[in-house]
């Protein structure tokens, strides 16, 4: 069988199992979707009140609405919880049998990641379509070129967030606090990735620090592509270059952490 067929079947089987397990926990799916909607809706509520009938940093009420609906969707499409799973595998010894199989455990995490993204983003899309049917402000213009750029930016952001989460989870080889590090990362990301406010509204010092890091490329850049007005080539070039550079850096960090971590692996039990 061709390698493509082998990998298609592997990913098909892993994603299928992830969905079958999901169906056993329907209540938790509802909770996760609520969580995915609540945060941007609260942020929107606050900025809606602040903006009033005017504009803040160039954002009027409708712009905020479009921005935070964009955050909701792009976040669901790029989110990565894999560090929690990996941390558990390493600390509780569930990595053992995974290491004895002819499949890097990264693929299982990636398949799970794709499975919950399809589920989460699918539901968010329904929420958005329902909102758009009654609220013109959150409708998007039909623009295939823009959407193609957005798809690419979302794919790169999703890959980067996956490797960030997976690599942070690998820190469990060294510390029992890997998930706390991920929490810290998520906390910083609330501000620097544009989750609670568009980057244009951050204090200039904070915004310039953010530009030096990977955070804006995780979320804000694809959201602005999706909802923003202008698609200048300078903006596209800088955005995609930043995404690619940081993705390469995080993949390198993953490879290093995986190789070193395995050598260090104590494996539970003696």
């Amino acid at each position, binding site marked *: *069988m061709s390698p493509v067929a082998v990998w298609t079947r*592997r990913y098909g*089987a892993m994603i299928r199992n992830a969905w079958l*397990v999901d169906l056993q*926990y329907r209540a938790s799916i509802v909770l996760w979707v609520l969580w995915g909607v609540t945060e941007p809706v609260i942020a929107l509520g606050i900025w809606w009140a602040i903006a009033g009938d005017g504009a803040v940093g160039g954002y009027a009420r409708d712009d905020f609405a479009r921005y935070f609906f964009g955050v909701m969707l792009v976040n669901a499409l790029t989110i990565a919880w894999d560090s929690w799973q990996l941390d558990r595998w390493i600390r509780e010894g569930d990595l*053992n*049998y995974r290491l004895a*199989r002819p499949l890097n455990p990264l693929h299982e995490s990636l398949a799970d990641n794709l499975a919950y993204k399809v589920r989460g983003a699918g539901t968010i899309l329904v929420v958005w379509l329902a909102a758009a049917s009654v609220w013109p402000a959150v409708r998007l213009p039909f623009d295939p070129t823009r959407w193609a750029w957005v798809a690419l930016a979302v794919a790169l952001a999703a890959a980067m967030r996956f490797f960030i989460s997976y690599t942070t989870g690998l820190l469990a080889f060294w510390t029992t606090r890997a998930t706390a590090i991920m929490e810290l990362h998520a906390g910083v990301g609330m501000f620097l990735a544009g989750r609670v406010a568009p980057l244009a509204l951050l204090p200039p010092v904070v915004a310039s620090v953010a530009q030096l890091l990977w955070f804006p490329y995780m979320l804000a850049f694809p959201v602005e592509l999706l909802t923003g007005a202008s698609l200048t080539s300078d903006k596209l070039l800088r955005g995609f270059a930043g995404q690619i550079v940081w993705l390469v850096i995080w993949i390198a960090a993953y490879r290093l952490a995986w190789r070193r971590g395995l050598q260090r692996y104590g494996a539970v*039990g003696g």
Partner: protein
Amino acid sequence: MAAAIAAQQLSKDFRVKVRDPGLRGAVAALFRPRYRTVRAVRAVSFEIAPGEIVAFLGPNGAGKTTTLKMLAGLLYPSAGSTRVAGFDPWTGGSEFKRRIALVLGNRQQLVWDLPALETFQLNRAIYDIPRLDFQARVEELSDLLGLADVLDKPVRQLSLGERMKCELAAALLHRPPILFLDEPTLGLDVSAQDAIRRFLSAYRDRYGATILLTSHYMQDVTALASRVLIINRGRLLYDGALEALVARIARTKRLELVLGDGVTEQRLAVFGTVKSFRAPNAVLEVPRAEAAATSARLLAALPVVDLSIEDPPIEDVIRQAFAAGGEAEE
């Protein structure tokens, strides 16, 4: 024939953090961490031929599982080398992993919320098993292990014994020639233990598989293994047949007696050490070399209804072997 499994001077050291008890100890460890090196496995060497079933024995923390994990390519040895199925486990990659199965009695690969068959399907995709082969193997393993009514129930609804049988089936679908089993009968009831032993024996006979297993149950060892490796505090103390170990370690034999009327403990004590006396049953311990002669004298001197000469319980022999290793260590 080349060995299926070979270990040469295999060693593994772990560096563990040492911490004094209490809050002060915790704070001190934060600023000045101290480490201690635990030598889990020390220069262990052995070879296992294809088709052999070998039991790895040792008390908790002796280094059995650590050795198994090095052989399976999970742990990186601190020193020494291994060859398993012709590969270095650490660098053998997928080709090596297709040739082994690792079953850990206290960890399961079955997906908890789904029927075992779903995990089998996943393994079919991971190991790239053709559909027809897969169906035939599931049927075969299901027959051997008695899983017909079990495979479509969610794993969480299965008994421990059923789970372990499914676990073994999942691990053997790709038909590996080498099996590493860590406590495969842990916590199972007697009939489930027996079923698993019969299955492993049948699997070996059918496919010539090499099996290295650890267990705390001596029945696993006596029923399955032609050879034992005894390890304690990381050192290999014994490598050979179980019977030879008994002959070497056990310096005594047990005479199990059913006595006629009127025999007192005092009269019996003339012939050896009375280990138990509950008329009409008694157990007498005598030096190994004198067992036959003492039996003859007993039969001539006392009214004996029945007499059998036994080795001491295998658990006692193993305990003595561990103790001998411990003393050598001090």
